[in-house]
């Protein structure tokens, strides 16, 4: 007899489906009670199904800011983490700066970034990179330091070069940490891009802009349709990360 996949068992999918259904019921009750609190579920659905192109186009704009931003953030974080693992001096110099960056209210510098980089997408990409940088750096650093010390000794007694040790041991050891960070950072980059669109002057597209302008015009159904689109794309990108992780880190599945 064929074994039913875990995810198809009612005990697995049942509870979240019931919870989601309850949420929709509560939403509908609240929307019918006060139409300025929430739009009805049906009106949001109508928005999404009658004009999907608007939401897909604006989602594309937001993704075109989020993906380069998170990619830049990861590359810079990994390079800095590599430098930090090679030199304590570099760690002492850079880690406090990274902490300062982490506690800086980055959204507040969005208008200044527009002044610095003009009205192009660049300031929003930079903002996404800044928002996602700290978790990417900390996880890269933890990952590179997570290599099995006894395996490090094996390579040391073979007189492996720093590059060989990095390539054959430290970088593969860091992958679980990089993927763990990606699960948080990739959806965060979409939220970051949307928020950057809301607070940056001169923006006229993207889901953040759509949600903001619809809210200002009291078009709650459009605003919530934009929010639902953000959630859907957040879930899709996270699913892509999870599936990629399970493929790349297939050797971990047996632990």
């Amino acid at each position, binding site marked *: 007899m064929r074994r039913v996949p875990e995810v198809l068992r009612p005990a697995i999918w049942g509870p979240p489906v019931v919870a989601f259904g309850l949420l929709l019921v509560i939403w509908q009750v609240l929307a019918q009670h006060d139409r300025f609190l929430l739009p009805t579920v049906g009106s949001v659905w109508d928005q999404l199904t009658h004009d999907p192109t608007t939401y897909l186009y604006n989602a594309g704009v937001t993704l075109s800011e989020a993906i380069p931003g998170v990619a830049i953030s990861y590359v810079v974080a990994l390079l800095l983490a590599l430098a930090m693992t090679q030199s304590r001096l570099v760690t002492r110099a850079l880690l406090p700066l990274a902490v300062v960056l982490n506690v800086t209210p980055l959204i507040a510098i969005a208008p200044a970034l527009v002044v610095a980089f003009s009205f192009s997408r660049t300031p929003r990409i930079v903002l996404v990179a800044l928002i996602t940088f700290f978790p990417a750096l900390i996880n890269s650093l933890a990952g590179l330091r997570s290599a099995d010390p006894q*395996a490090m*000794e*094996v390579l040391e007694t*073979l007189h*492996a070069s720093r590059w060989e040790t990095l390539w054959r041991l430290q970088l*593969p050891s860091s992958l679980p940490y990089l993927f763990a960070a990606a699960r948080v950072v990739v959806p965060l980059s979409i939220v970051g891009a949307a928020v950057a669109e809301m607070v940056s002057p001169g923006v006229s597209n993207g889901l953040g802009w759509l949600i903001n302008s619809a809210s200002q015009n009291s078009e709650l159904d459009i605003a919530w349709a934009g929010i639902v689109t953000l959630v859907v794309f957040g879930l899709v990108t996270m699913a892509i990360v999870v599936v990629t992780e399970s493929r790349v*880190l297939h050797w971990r599945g047996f632990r």
Partner: protein
Amino acid sequence: MSLPPRPPAPSTPSLARPAVEAAPAFEGSVTDGRDRIVLSGVTKRFPTLAWPALDHVDLVIERGSFFTVIGPSGAGKSTLLRVLAGLVPPDAGEVSVFGEAPAEAARAKHLGWVPQSPALLPWRTVLENVRLPLEVNKRAGCEERDPEEILARLGLRQASSMLPAHLSGGMRQRVAIARAFAFAPALLLMDEPFGALDEMTREHVAHLLLELWQAERPTVVFVTHSVTEAVVLSDRVAVIGEGKLTAPVDISLPRPRPEGVEDTAPFHELAGELRSRLKRAFIATGT
């Protein structure tokens, strides 16, 4: 620097293998000894330890022999091995691995290291793990063995494409041994490699190691807690306590060690002698 050839492996097992002579006191510069490992007045202290981890250790290990160090926890066994591997520099004294400093020996890929845990790379298959030493520091140009053949000799032919996570503890340790033999190092340093295995697996893996050593004859410095393992495997065994190494005991049992050697009277006599030395070392360290 190239090393002189190893002693040939005996073509026919000799039951009357002569006991390994007690190492003569080494005179002259330690770098003269191209056929032996020499430690002269080696001392190493750690700030967290009340006594020196190694206290003026003098030792000569002949090329091709199987030398075991036994002692209580914290007695300095692993430190001795790490000094020989060049992982820890001594505070005083000289170390020569067949005429080379440990760092030079590592550079020339003359050292094989088998740590306490197998330290396999979980993303590489068994065969890829065994090949690892052949892929790094290629400039050293070591003598290579066929990894698949070594795996077969350790009973792992079927497992060569498996990931470490699929293997039992004993199999993983055999892979670690295969990895160390893959590049035919002149000196194999083994730091309690069977410590985490159950008794039966331990005996099995130890016998496989012995067979491989008998065929390849690298010099082995082996650290263990087990008196039985020390006597079964070794040519000579030294007890270490509070960083002081006692004069090695010659294990004058025939090679290859026959099945059931553990039940013979000479074995018990040697094990008894080592146990009494070990007891003194335990009392000295207060463990």
